[in-house]
């Protein structure tokens, strides 16, 4: 296929990828909905994220059909970003550690949620919403 002719492909592949993206997004949401936690949560969320991103770039953005010179220009430079992410996470863990160790901060505090702040029960929240509606 010559590049000058443009990126024309059968419609079927777009429909398939489209459905696949829906399925993968549902899986991602299911991870949150069923409250999967810990390492499993990270593994699943990152897996579905990478798959989704890969299909969008490869098929919807046609990178899989482009010539190597363009593909490397697109995918090459962002690789250095992995270095930035790696360095910043090493640094981040270190700073967090020093704050706990030398400044006595408690790393195990629990965040508040909207229901803590609005008085707990869901019933009250609804009343609150009704009041605002009037």
């Amino acid at each position, binding site marked *: 296929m010559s590049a000058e002719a443009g990126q024309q492909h059968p419609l079927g592949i777009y429909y398939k990828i489209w459905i696949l993206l829906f399925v993968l997004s549902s899986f991602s949401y299911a991870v949150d909905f069923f409250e999967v936690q810990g390492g499993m949560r990270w593994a699943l*969320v990152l897996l579905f994220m990478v798959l989704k991103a890969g299909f969008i770039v490869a098929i919807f953005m046609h990178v899989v059909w482009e010539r190597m010179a363009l593909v490397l220009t697109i995918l090459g430079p962002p690789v250095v970003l992995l270095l930035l992410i790696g360095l910043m996470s090493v640094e981040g863990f270190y700073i967090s550690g020093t704050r706990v160790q030398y400044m006595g901060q408690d790393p195990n505090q629990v965040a508040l949620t*909207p229901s803590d702040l609005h008085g707990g029960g869901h019933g009250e929240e609804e009343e609150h919403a009704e009041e605002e509606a009037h």
Partner: protein
Amino acid sequence: MSEAAISESNSTLVDDWSADKQAYHVPWGKAMMWIFLVSDTFIFTCFLTSYLHVRLTTTEPWPLQSEIFALSFGGDPIPLILIAIMTFILITSSGTMALAVNFGYRKDKVKTFWFMVATAAFGASFVGMQAFEWSKLILEEGVRPWGNPFGAPQFGSIFFMITGFHGLHVTAGVIYLLTVAFKVKKGHYDKKGYEIVEIAGLYWHFVDLVWVFIFAFFYLL
């Protein structure tokens, strides 16, 4: 360096850059769009990396996204439901955009126009939901860029910066898509060819791509 050497190096410089060479065998607009998207990748990655860094370094607890972005439709609040709907809307719009590109290359102006308009409409509804999400967070929950009632104050600054910048991209994309769509309808590209639809599509898919990462890192993890 002697004057002759300088003049020689100048002429080789000119030769190299003015030689009849083409590295990318794609329309120039497409190559430029890709270069823009690569630079935009760097911007968004810097934002996400700064998020990674503040979230790691703060010893205050990070607010629970799943509860904060829950929405109630009369019954119990469903965790993260608005964000899930926004994600599905953006994927739907990516699909309609891919179809628009395909019909563009088939020179089917009517279908290209309508699929682009549909894509822009999905994009606009995404921005609308984001506006709703922002106003709920600002007015009802009291989240500010410098603090919030739940936990680490950085939550607000990161949230407004990342989703705000992404929302700006979506808004710009809606305008861009509508502009191209109406030009397609008027027949501006009958002679030039329909690469412009693909180029606009690249931008739109990129916006969807960024959301994939925001959805995973900011909302799910």
